């Protein structure tokens, strides 16, 4: 009988077929895709041999797009249709980005929700723009492997909040990627350093990119990467230094960048000068504004005076993270620098001074995140030789709910290890009340107005009772991707309340469905065929997963339990090859449900195994 193939838990059933899993660094300025091939993590080049894809998307009136370097060609001549640094818009509202002030886009006026940009090809959400970049990288990887991808690990700044993470995950799904995990950029970088240098001990990762800053402190112990504390600013990066340098140079030259194209040209000139000043003492800020040439000399000292306030902000976050970690900075064994902006000598000096030791810089700061993500993707895909890699991460920002008077009641503290959950009891305040709304916010301040609104969860279906009699137990869960979900239940009646989420800065499920319908990189498929194909892929994955679970832990089952799982598996195999999507989904559900008790037993066995090598004290 062909039902069971013997394999190690989590490993692909056939050792000769590696699962093609990639790591993707979706950066503010650059994006990269990397994979582990023949035991080595490497960034995948495009047809021209370039590994870096500029994070730029240009929209044309005929609905076509250009991505990457080709898009950048329009950055100055066609600024409102050429979207760069879209990462700064992910999960953000109009008020957030107008604070940044200098973006050249034609934003759609809206009082709430994520910003939208008006382009020649219609109104685009940052999620759709990011999906174009991700779809390009997916295509590059599939061309390299000449095969479909099993899945991807996507990196996000450690300090990204829930809305920004969810937006990133939505973009990946829109791009047709199976998201194996979202991981933090500093953690990904530490994997690349840890595995390549064989490091153990306590490390600090300072990651200053184009638009985000992260600091993470983590402990490496034999393949386990444990984040102790993290901090940062998800709206602080090299872009801000470019903008400040551009303002300074234009003021000295006595000119004003009037149009969106001029502002873009000035920012690009500032970036060129800034990059030159990493190795030279003098550079020229040069650009053509409104047809007139502007040239302004800049010294490294000028740049450093302009950049210092930004670097000081990063160092304040570093101090707080060290304090949160409750470690002495002398206990830190190494400092890793990540992100293009850490090439600035000023940054290197500030980090060196604070920690009292020179930072590690022997890996390319542009590639190191993607390389680490590729390692994690390889491990999550269960490929042989991926090693015993385990990441234990934390939630970067405290999570709270709104209480009386606009105050925040904190329910999950920042730097709590994830996954984590907290249950909280609520009651009704009116007779017969059957619904209530819970406003979830993220941040460290005491007032709701000073924190970031994440979502309003509407609970419905509470049984009518007198005021104060209902006891609604609400469980807030943050999963291993750092994403929040909420479940609610009325305790006295046992009724499950239904929860609908109104994300403050996210996309609704309907919007995601509509965007999926519009297609990314697979416009030729029709929806029904795609849905059927997805159900079949799900069926194959589930059958493979259960085969390997039975091979690993099958003896935990009684003959009867095993027979029930096998019956459901046989049924799914039969429906899998039909064209009846509903039937496949029914069989999937039956098989999945038949394994619940087995799953819990497997965890129990894992817990026993974890303690088996240790002295178990008398209870």
């Amino acid at each position, binding site marked *: 009988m062909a039902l069971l193939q013997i394999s190690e838990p989590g490993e692909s059933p056939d050792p000769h077929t590696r699962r093609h899993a990639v790591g993707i660094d979706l950066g503010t300025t650059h994006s990269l895709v990397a994979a582990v091939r023949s035991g080595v993590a490497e960034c995948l080049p495009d047809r021209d041999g370039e590994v870096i894809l500029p994070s730029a998307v240009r929209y044309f009136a005929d609905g076509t797009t250009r991505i990457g370097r080709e898009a950048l060609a329009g950055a100055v001549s066609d600024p409102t249709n050429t979207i760069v640094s879209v990462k700064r818009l992910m999960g953000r509202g109009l008020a957030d980005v107008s604070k940044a002030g200098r973006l050249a886009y034609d934003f759609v006026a809206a009082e709430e929700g994520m910003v939208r940009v008006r382009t020649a090809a219609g109104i685009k959400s940052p999620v759709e723009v990011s999906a174009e970049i991700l779809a390009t990288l997916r295509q590059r990887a599939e061309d390299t492997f000449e095969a479909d991808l099993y899945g991807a690990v996507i990196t996000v700044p450690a300090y990204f909040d829930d809305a920004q993470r969810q937006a990133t995950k939505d973009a990946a799904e829109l791009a047709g990627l199976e998201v194996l995990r979202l991981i933090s950029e500093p953690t990904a970088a530490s994997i690349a350093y840890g595995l390549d240098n064989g490091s153990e001990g306590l490390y600090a990762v300072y990651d200053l990119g184009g638009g985000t800053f992260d600091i993470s402190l983590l402990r490496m112990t034999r393949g*386990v990467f444990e984040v102790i504390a993290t901090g940062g600013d998800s709206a602080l990066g090299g872009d801000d230094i470019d903008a400040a340098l551009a303002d300074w140079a234009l003021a000295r030259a006595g000119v004003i960048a009037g149009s969106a194209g001029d502002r873009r040209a000035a920012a690009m000139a500032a970036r060129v000068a800034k990059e030159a000043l990493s190795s030279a003492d003098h550079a020229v800020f040069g650009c053509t504004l409104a047809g007139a040439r502007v040239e302004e000399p800049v010294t490294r000292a000028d740049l450093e005076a302009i950049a210092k306030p930004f670097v000081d902000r990063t160092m304040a976050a570093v101090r707080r993270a060290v304090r949160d970690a409750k470690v002495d900075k002398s206990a830190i064994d190494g400092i890793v620098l990540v992100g293009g902006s850490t090439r600035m000598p000023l940054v290197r000096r500030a980090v060196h001074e604070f920690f009292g030791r020179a930072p590690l810089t022997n890996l390319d700061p542009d590639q190191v995140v993607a390389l680490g993500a590729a390692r994690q993707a390889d491990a999550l895909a269960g490929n042989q030789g991926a090693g015993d890699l*385990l990441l*234990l991460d934390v939630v970067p920002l405290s999570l709270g709910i709104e209480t009386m008077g606009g105050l925040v009641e904190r329910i999950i503290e920042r730097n709590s290890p994830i996954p984590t959950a907290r249950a909280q009891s609520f009651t009704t305040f009116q007779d017969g009340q059957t619904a209530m709304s819970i406003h979830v916010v993220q941040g460290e301040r005491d007032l709701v107005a000073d924190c970031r609104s994440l979502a309003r969860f509407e609970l419905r279906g509470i049984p009518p009772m007198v005021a104060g009699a209902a006891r609604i137990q609400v469980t807030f869960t943050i999963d291993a991707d750092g994403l929040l979900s909420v479940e609610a*239940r009325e305790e006295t009646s046992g009724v499950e309340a239904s929860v609908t989420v109104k994300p403050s800065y996210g996309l609704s499920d309907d919007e995601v469905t509509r965007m999926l319908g519009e297609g990314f990189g697979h416009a030729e498929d029709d929806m029904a065929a795609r849905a059927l194909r997805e159900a079949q892929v799900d069926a194959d994955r589930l059958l493979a997963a259960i085969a390997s679970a039975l091979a690993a832990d099958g003896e935990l089952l009684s003959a009867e339990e095993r027979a029930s799982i096998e019956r459901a598996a046989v049924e799914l195999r039969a429906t899998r090859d039909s064209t009846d999507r509903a039937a496949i989904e029914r069989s999937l559900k039956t098989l999945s449900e038949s394994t619940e008790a087995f799953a819990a037993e497997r965890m129990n066995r894992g*817990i026993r195994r974890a303690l088996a090598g240790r002295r178990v*004290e008398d209870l």
Partner: protein
Amino acid sequence: MAGPLRGPFSFLNMHLAIDDFALFGLSRSFALDRADLDARRRALQAEVHPDRFAGADAAARRAAMQSAVRVNEAHARLADPLKRAAYLCELAGTPIRAEDNTAMPLDFLREQMAWRESLDDAGSRAEVDAVAHDLANARRLAYERLASALDERRDFAAAAQEVRALMFIERFAADVDDRLVALES
């Protein structure tokens, strides 16, 4: 806190409703080796973390998530001395009930008020440091009394009273830390 898990976690009751000490293979004592506790957390997460089941079926992924949550929750409670002490009192049938048991000895309250006043009056770094020093001593002595009540005398009523006192002390210690941070920046 401990007790049967409800809601979405209920199906793990039979597996994970053992107490935190049992989950980590430890005896119920206040004295604890933090490095050993952390190593046990890593070993447990290496078995149950969702990443170990990334390619598994949905039921296994869900069970892994819930187990990993349980391990993290237990670790947080065991790693923090005050939470650990409160948990031991609760397991012994003497819950802390801080919210409806606020009566503290007069001497203790006087000492608290004196500390608050000296923190309010402290203008310089040296003066705040002096308060922090006194506080650290009082805190150390309180934890020593707590350890003795829990592990030697097994007097949980006395331990519960000490936990309530330490809750005041820790809150004050956090305020002192905030002042130190404010002075730094």
